[in-house]
């Protein structure tokens, strides 16, 4: 089980308190009507899925309830950092 640092509560807590919420920093299109099918497919379905550094969203669902971002190595499952939503990509 992962130990995850919530940047809002500033506490290291067990994974069962958190819900994974997919890859981070995927921006919703500002002008959906202007998007091509390729762009929609990329926005909806294509994910980087790297073996290595991964930017991802977590939600402290059984704690403060807030979303935040994290950088984790997917080969070792080690967290490099967690940071508040809206802060620049690490």
């Amino acid at each position, binding site marked *: 089980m992962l130990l995850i640092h919530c940047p809002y509560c500033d506490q290291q807590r067990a994974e069962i308190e958190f819900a*994974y919420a997919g890859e981070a920093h995927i921006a919703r299109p500002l002008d959906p009507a202007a998007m091509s099918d390729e762009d929609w497919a990329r926005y909806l379905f294509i994910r980087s899925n790297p073996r290595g550094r991964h930017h991802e969203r977590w939600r402290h669902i059984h704690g403060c309830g807030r979303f935040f971002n994290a950088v984790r190595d997917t080969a070792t499952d080690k967290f490099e950092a967690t940071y508040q939503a809206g802060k620049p990509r690490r």
Partner: protein
Amino acid sequence: MTRFSAFSLFAKALGGHQGWPEQWPDASPKPAYDAIIVGAGGHGLGAAYYLAKKYGITNVAVIEKGWLGGGNTGRNTTIIRSNYLYDESAHLYDHALKLWDGLSQELNYNTMYSKRGVMMLAHNVHDIQSFKRHIHANRLNGVDNEWLTAEQAKDYCPPLNISPDARYPVLGAALQRRGGTARHDTVAWGYARAAAALGVDIIQNCAVTGIRRGADGAVLGVETERGFIASRRIGVSAAGHSSVIMQMAGLDFPLESYPLQALVSEPVKPVFPCVVMSNTVHAYMSQSDKGELVIGAGTDQYVSYSQRGALHIIEHTLAAICEIFPIFRRMRMLRSWGGIVDVTPDRSPILGKTPVPGLYINCGWGTGGFKATPGAADLLAYTMAKDEPHPINAPYNLDRFRTGRLIDEAAAAAVAH
């Protein structure tokens, strides 16, 4: 290669089983091949076998990062079934199921395919409606699937607790009698032995590090830890690492790789006659011929390549097993492990051509790829040999994520999403 038969077993037994030759040679890479398969699991080895056997392309190499059959082929719960809802899925998985029949004879290798039946338990009204819809859809597609009352389910699988007081009462079940299990390792070994006998080179401990493309964009070959190997036809069958390989060719794929865990108990006498799945309670189980209960868990929630998962996932699964089968409450678990499964947004595989000429893909089987092994292998071989998909795998193209013609198969995984 010595053919396995009752006579050859007897003759070798007289010599204390000392005189068996190796089942396939450990090949070194040649400079060039007519076709290369990346990934020596059941799917990849099978594709090499069918390329050689059905399409006469015998100058083939199967390149594997680790050891043969050490990925998801050796890490699954060996369940075989084809009771999928949609037409495309029923055709695909039933194609595989038909090939499972007679596979042992064809490969001269006992895959221990056992049609012991796959039973899916209904615990609520929604389950009943959904399973009956599946049963009707399956029958229209020529796939066997039948409805059992709770009492009939108990007759078929005596350890089942059908008491109305159970936390998750069993209201009935859907049974596919042709479903069952096979011995997972023998599928890889059988295909490897049969493919090697036809001239296929199996190259282990040789990770692919790059895919070389020419000025026209078409593939020229693969860079590996043991040098460049040329081929104009490359099939990728790399399961959880598919998106890593495809990125070497500059392609982004709609895949995410998750850990999926499974575990086995201590071996006991035969007690559990079939495969039972409960999507609502989130558990599935069978008993191997060795006597271990084979139990599958759900995926972990996060993307990972670590081949291990969290204990709370296993706890949740075992709690569900104990709920449905109270007789197993005192069983001890022996081993647990994780595999990396590549999941697509619609839970259906991607099997066919890619935008890169000469590069073919078989990926996205998620949590349910073992059952499809012979079918996927056959269809990948067809696609590579003809440079066009077979009608069965044509709907499983990459373009469906652009056109929106998804095959949204919620039943693709063994457990509910």
